[in-house]
């Protein structure tokens, strides 16, 4: 009898917000209650047209890690948004970038932010960086039924490991598989072009300012060849969203810092006047 009540108390004492929702309020989860939907193969799956978020790049620099995302969301051949933000602070020491179905991705981001803060408040201490990365993987796996219907979300996670004293980078697949990446990584429709650029212009020991310039150049190259990725918009003064994470925590690079970097890049490409 006593063992049973102890088991019940232990099972109820969760520090996870997602587990709490799954038990008490499953309708609030962006991906439902996590059960796989069994489809009749004779009935074709409905195709949902929803805005898609595109390219995210992340790279390690000396003293931290940096993540940048373009500002475009597309729906088929139409630009759904020029202002969307796809990189967010997850907590004080980590950032999250998302590619894929924008609506679900934004909700997953919000859920992940609450998940980390909830743990911190209940336990009185922060999750380890690996712990955060694993939680995100579990949440992406929860979205698998939606991904099978074409509503996939693929995040990129980066944070400062306060124990190791270095920036670290994690990528995911739709099944929630978590892979630690070295040096740099990209996700989204323009990721192949951005990754090509990063291979040439990234080098070890970049400063934060150099890392900002490298990330913007990689996004510029992605936008050059991928119609779903937006480049720096000098007409509307819209620049990518860039966050750096260091020993001091998360910092959003201000528009005032990004403007000159993006303008200088556009100017140098214009002077060269070449085919990219």
């Amino acid at each position, binding site marked *: 009898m006593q063992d049973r009540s102890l088991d019940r108390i232990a099972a109820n004492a969760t520090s996870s*917000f997602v587990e709490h929702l799954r038990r008490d309020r499953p309708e609030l989860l962006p991906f439902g209650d996590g059960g796989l939907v069994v489809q009749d193969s004779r009935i074709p799956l409905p195709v949902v047209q929803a805005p898609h978020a595109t390219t995210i790049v992340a790279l390690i620099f000396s003293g931290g890690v940096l993540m940048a995302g373009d500002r475009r969301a597309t729906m088929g051949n139409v630009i759904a948004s020029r202002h969307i933000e796809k990189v967010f602070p997850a907590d004080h020491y980590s950032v999250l970038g998302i590619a894929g179905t924008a609506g679900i991705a934004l909700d997953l981001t919000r859920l992940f932010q609450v998940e980390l803060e909830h743990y911190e408040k209940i336990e009185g201490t922060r999750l380890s960086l690996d712990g955060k990365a694993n939680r995100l993987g579990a949440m992406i796996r929860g979205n698998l039924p939606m991904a099978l219907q074409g509503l996939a979300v693929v995040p990129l996670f980066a944070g400062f490991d306060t124990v190791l004293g270095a920036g670290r980078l994690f990528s995911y697949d739709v099944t929630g598989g978590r892979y630690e990446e070295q040096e740099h990584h990209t996700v989204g429709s323009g990721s192949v072009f951005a990754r090509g650029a990063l291979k040439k212009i990234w080098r070890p020991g970049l400063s934060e300012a150099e890392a900002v310039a490298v990330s913007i150049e990689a996004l510029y190259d992605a936008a050059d060849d991928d119609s779903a990725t937006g480049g720096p918009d000098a007409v509307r003064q819209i620049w990518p969203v860039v966050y750096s994470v260091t020993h001091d925590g998360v910092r959003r690079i201000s528009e005032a810092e990004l403007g000159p970097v993006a303008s200088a890049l556009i100017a140098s490409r214009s002077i060269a006047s070449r085919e990219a």
Partner: protein
Amino acid sequence: MTQQFYVSPEQLMKDRADFARKGIARGRSVVVISCADGIALVAENPSPSLHKIGEIYDRIAFAAVGKYNEFESLRQAGIRYADVRGYSYDREDVTARGLASVYAQSLGVVFTAEQKPFEVELAVVEVGTTQAQDHLYRLTFDGSIADEHHFIVMGGLAENVAAVMTDGWNAGMTMSAAVRLAAAGLTPAGAPALPAEALEAAVLQRSVHRDAGTRRAFRRLDDGELVALLTGEV
């Protein structure tokens, strides 16, 4: 068959209330003070890890006296309530008033329906953009809720501590003055001042630096910061 003795409802409630009051008075006091820079929460608590003060949400904090297991489960339930509400509506829609009313209901149900009432007293406080917008709610074991002004003192020799607060409190106090006043109140008359290790302190800051990427006003003070505040170096 055993016959149950008749106990009048008045007597039953009085016995329960006396029982809870005794449990709460056995503990040490907690002080919550509203001041110009925000709200200071100070408790006499020699343990550095078993907290009596906790963060609930962006601008809301919790303080408690009484039985640790009982107020700890209430604290966790409060965090769940606030996080679910903020996630399903918006962060702005989480208020101390809403949380206090949920606490009042659950304490009231436990007081009348359970075998034993909770031996706890809680403070739920929210820092506003101006001092007039600060909310300080006191919740007692029977589910009573009181909207307090300026400060709350709970547990232990609460009357003695409250007397010190009434004398020393003024609206223009800085955070360090508020923490010093609280520490002075918690020190028994004639005894040497309590060292920082014997105190637990946290603040809800009125102005939160949004550009630092946080909306959270709650900050726990470590021993070093507390010593600096107590000696007036800040």
